[in-house]
């Protein structure tokens, strides 16, 4: 998620994203495995857009969400163009705080982001708790946290100003994001690796087969659930495919009690190999 088109533009180019036709007011761009939404300014807009995108794409817990954009810095410790990975996000108004899980190595600076519902200038520094300020991060995080685990929600902000009143041109915003694409991509690739190890041990084919067997044998809901459990345990314990169940695809039970007999056979096979 980005707030503006100028933030999105370098990402759209880099990931070769295509605009998709939408009935909602949001512009969405996507490719095979990346989708980007432009939220507009503000916490609420960010939350709605994030929730919309994650719902639209029916995200799984192994997907990751990013808010990429520019931010202001409260001190000059980090220079203009520094990429920041936020390890704490404060919603200034509600004082709610969010903590993404930073498990993987990265080459970004870490810091606390504070999200305001209005622009922030130097004369307000005494009211700011965070090292960096923006107007979307907290909304994005709150919405994403309803879908995803904390190791798959990332707020990446590029320092664009030090709370001066002058406005940055759209071209300069795009340039700041563009310069940081390598470091952002490295982060994304590592997150992909992190998520690769996770998933369901049963494949779609396994589920199809188990479903078919359950229908053929007229198994109850509980028995079907147990069948899946036994199948999972079998694959984990014996590190084998479910090929041993294939013969049951050709069996049809005439009654529930006959199905139960077959079920016991399957159970024996899966539990004791």
């Amino acid at each position, binding site marked *: 998620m980005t707030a503006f088109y100028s933030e999105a533009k370098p990402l759209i180019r880099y990931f070769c994203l295509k605009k998709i036709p939408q009935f909602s007011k949001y512009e969405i761009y996507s490719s095979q495995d990346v989708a980007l939404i432009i939220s507009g300014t503000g916490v609420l807009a960010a939350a709605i857009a994030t929730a919309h995108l994650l719902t639209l794409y029916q995200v799984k817990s192994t997907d990751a969400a990013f808010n990429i954009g520019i931010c202001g810095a409260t001190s000059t410790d980090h220079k203009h163009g520094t990429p920041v990975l936020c*390890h704490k996000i404060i919603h200034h108004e509600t004082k709610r705080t969010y903590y993404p899980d930073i498990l993987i*190595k990265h080459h970004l600076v870490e810091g606390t982001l504070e999200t305001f519902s209005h622009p922030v200038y130097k004369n307000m520094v005494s009211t700011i708790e965070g090292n960096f300020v923006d107007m979307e991060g907290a909304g994005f995080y709150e919405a994403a946290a309803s879908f995803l685990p904390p190791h798959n929600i990332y707020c990446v902000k590029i320092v664009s100003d030090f709370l001066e009143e002058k406005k940055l041109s759209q071209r300069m915003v795009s340039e700041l994001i563009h310069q940081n694409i390598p470091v952002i991509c490295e982060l994304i690739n590592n997150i992909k690796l992190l998520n690769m190890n996770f998933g369901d041990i049963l494949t779609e084919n396994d589920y199809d087969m188990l479903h078919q067997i359950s229908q053929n044998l007229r198994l109850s809901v509980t028995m079907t659930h147990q069948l899946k459990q036994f199948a999972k*345990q079998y694959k984990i314990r014996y590190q084998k495919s479910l090929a041993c169940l294939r013969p049951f695809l050709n069996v049809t039970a005439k009654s529930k009690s006959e199905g139960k007999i077959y079920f016991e056979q399957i159970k024996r096979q899966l539990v004791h190999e």
Partner: protein
Amino acid sequence: MNKSKDNLFMNSFSHIYIEKSIATHPITKKVLHRFPHATRIEVNHYKDVFCRTRQNFFLQKNSRKLILAVKKDRFIYPGTKVCQNFGNEHFYYTSSVLNCIYECDYCYLQGMYPSANIVVFVNIEDFFSELESLLQKHPVYLSISYDTDLLAFENVVPFASMWIQYARRHPDLQIELRTKSVNYSAIRHLPPSENIVLAWTLSPQEAINEFEQKTPSLNARLKCIKQSINDGWKVRLCFDPILYIEKWQEHYKQCIQETFSILPAEKIKDISIGVFRMPRDYLKNIRKNKIDSPLLHYPFECKNGIYSYPEQITRQLIDFVYQMIHSYVPSEKIYL
């Protein structure tokens, strides 16, 4: 993953979350001094980090963070029925640290806590004062290394030493410090005391290799135990959990033989034996995310909300291990 785990994950304790209210507590300072390069993040309440929804315990294990917090309410809890009380009437446990640096496959903490991060309640003085009032009422038997391995963690926070020193001043208190670590050197400078039991969990080396990641070898544990016995400490051995693994008879036989070839049986205070068991909900939670553990995906049977091996297997395991141990120590020293 083509990238090795070490290349992908940050070091453990790369981040330390600190509750605002204990920022200047002496234990906080000690921990921060121990990890000068850790990223420090201020939090209002430890649960804001520890209890976030949808955390993945198994991923977090690769890069555990530290959370320094203050415990506000109860400090000492009555023991539950799944714990061995060793014949003590007033059996309690306490958890000044939540979670453990080891990664045993069978550990119930993986299903009990929402996070693999380690919480340290720095206000140990409040634990002591609650215990003080309890001790006014009756003697107390207290397990102090309950939801963690306190001795293994001693180099981060010296709670084991502090508890031992406290117990020395309170003869009505019996404490058990259970561990798999060989960090005995961290408490060796303290004189042994009658009311402190050092309890070591022992497993066959094959089980350690396979299911007790990051823990010291059996041999190293035994050498460490021997040293503590020689120094005059009371020692308990725990063959718990006994696991139904391939060639289990062979492995447990070897393990027990090795144990008593190194340790003088007559100097062991007592021995506890138990098979793998885990509350139903915890096992359910673990199985959801941990898909690579044949041990935990064994078709256990559930009895009164606790999963364990079927009765017949449990009996075989217990009988075998009991008989083996009984050939070295009398039955009154063996707790089931």
